[in-house]
């Protein structure tokens, strides 16, 4: 997110020197223009419209275009929205932490111990990601349900007498499902960062008397930090806005902000409030992402 903002600034800054473009620049811009124009019409314009909407009000079909902060006031002060926002943040922070911590050893194993079959391992890790997200989430519902796979298996084995009910339709089910769904995304960036580490640094540390643990915390982990930050952001940003998982396995206690946004645009027919919720959650996520990005830069990237 921070990088995106920086990029925006650089576009703005460069806009003034457009008249004196070299031939190379003109050719490059001409070639990229179809893609850029598409992104401007289909992404920039709609996003701008959402922001505009969040300052308007709506009565059934009539749109009142007087600027107002009422939607934001409602989005930030109404208890229901506060609860949903906090829950979304809490769930996706737990998911992110779990996913990244569980993924690190796998990435480490791939980078440091697998010699000739790296591509195969990476392929196997990405395959489940390419199968329908909707179906994968739904399968967790099948696994965790009252008469589901998990309960029926345990009852057949005689471990429990009646089905466990605390495993589905709550926030824990959402955490488990999301942690599973986003696992491959966490592994890949960490793996890339680990691959870039110069192995001679590790030998040097060993020669200078560092044990494996000390060596890990002084060299491997700090140098892998850019990858850890990348995978943290890659998991965190989309999970805050996830719609399917809370809807399918969350019950009423596991609903998140995306479900509320959908309700506002759908049944509640209050698009401006939905827009204010969407913009608010984007701002919150962007702020947290920037924080994580800078924390990662401060604590990693160089040998300690």
């Amino acid at each position, binding site marked *: 997110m921070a990088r995106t903002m920086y990029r925006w600034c650089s576009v703005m800054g460069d806009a003034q020197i457009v008249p004196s473009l070299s031939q190379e620049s003109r050719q490059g811009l001409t070639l990229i*223009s179809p893609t850029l124009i598409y992104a401007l019409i289909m992404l920039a314009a709609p996003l701008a419209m959402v922001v505009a909407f969040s300052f308007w009000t709506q009565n059934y079909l009539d749109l009142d275009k007087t600027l107002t902060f009422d939607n934001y006031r409602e989005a930030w002060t109404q208890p229901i929205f506060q609860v949903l926002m906090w829950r979304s943040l809490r769930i996706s922070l737990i998911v992110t932490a779990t996913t990244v911590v*569980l993924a690190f050893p796998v990435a480490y194993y791939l980078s440091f111990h697998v010699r000739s079959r790296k591509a195969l391992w990476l392929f196997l890790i990405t395959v489940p990601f390419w199968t*329908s997200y909707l179906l994968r989430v739904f399968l967790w519902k*099948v696994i965790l349900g009252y008469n589901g796979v998990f309960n029926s298996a345990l009852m057949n084995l005689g471990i429990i007498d009646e089905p466990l009910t605390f495993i589905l339709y709550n926030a824990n089910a959402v955490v488990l499902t999301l942690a599973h769904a986003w*696992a491959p995304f966490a592994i890949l960036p960490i793996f890339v960062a680990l691959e870039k580490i110069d192995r001679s640094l590790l030998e040097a540390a060993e020669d200078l008397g560092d044990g494996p643990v000390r060596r890990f915390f002084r060299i491997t982990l700090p140098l892998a930090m850019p990858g850890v930050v990348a995978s943290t952001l890659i998991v965190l940003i989309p999970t805050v806005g996830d719609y399917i998982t809370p809807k399918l396995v969350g019950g009423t206690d596991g609903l998140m902000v995306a479900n509320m946004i959908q309700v506002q645009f759908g049944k509640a027919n209050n698009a401006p409030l939905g827009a204010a919720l969407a913009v608010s959650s984007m701002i919150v996520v962007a702020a947290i992402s920037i924080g994580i990005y800078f924390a990662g830069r401060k604590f990693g990237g160089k040998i300690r």
Partner: protein
Amino acid sequence: MMGRAMRYASARWLVVYAVAYMIFLYAPVILLPLFAFNDGTVVAFPLTGFTTKWFGLLWSTEALHGAVRNSAFVAVSTALISTVLGACAARSASKYRFPGQRGVMGFIMLPLVLPEIIVAVALLVMLIQLGMSLSLWTVIAGHVLICTPFSIAILSSAFAGLEDSLEEASFDLGETRWGTFRRVTLPLIMPGVISSLLITFTISLDEFIIAFFLTGTDVTLPVYIWSQLRFPSKLPSVMALGTILLVLSVALLMVAEVFRRRAVRRQGMDGGSTQGLI
């Protein structure tokens, strides 16, 4: 000596962990074929017997066939459009430098990090304001937006290995711009193009949120599946449908991977390496 023994021990634990992790990754997916062939109306253990009737049931469901046709149309259109747009951007980024390039590329790649619900809601708001009716074309518009960054990522590595001298030689020998593209550039990047087509096709085929928001009366396959999930009696046939989709996705991916490796090899790099995959 101690250090080496410890390293072997830790390596063994890492193998065990990595394999356990893979089992966790694959556990839900394994259930699809298991229950698709299970002769029972409830999806639960113990399995009751082998049957292929759920697949037969799919064959006779009219609504499903419509959804498959819609999805095929959306996915093919999305793959073609986003690969063309991706090729323009990837070529421009790999060959030319212009002011603000990083910003422009960053903006085009933005859908990769935006939650899909934001993209879906934003497009919905705009389309309604413009008074456009929702149809398969609006779904395609949304899918092209999120697929183009993937296409750029794949095609960038295809273009990166391209030697300028080959194109220059073609110009010197009197070929036109278009002739050079068709006879020199395109054949060289063809594996990348095919890989991009397959990946964007697969993403579009599986995408739910944007299709859910932007679809009109014609539903795509994931939206159809979503509507079926409410009925417990439909679960076994959903499992059968999921199995077919799983096999299809994996097959497409493997073909895409073969072409990607061929693209890498064609450029003289090590085909087994992980370059370009990430």
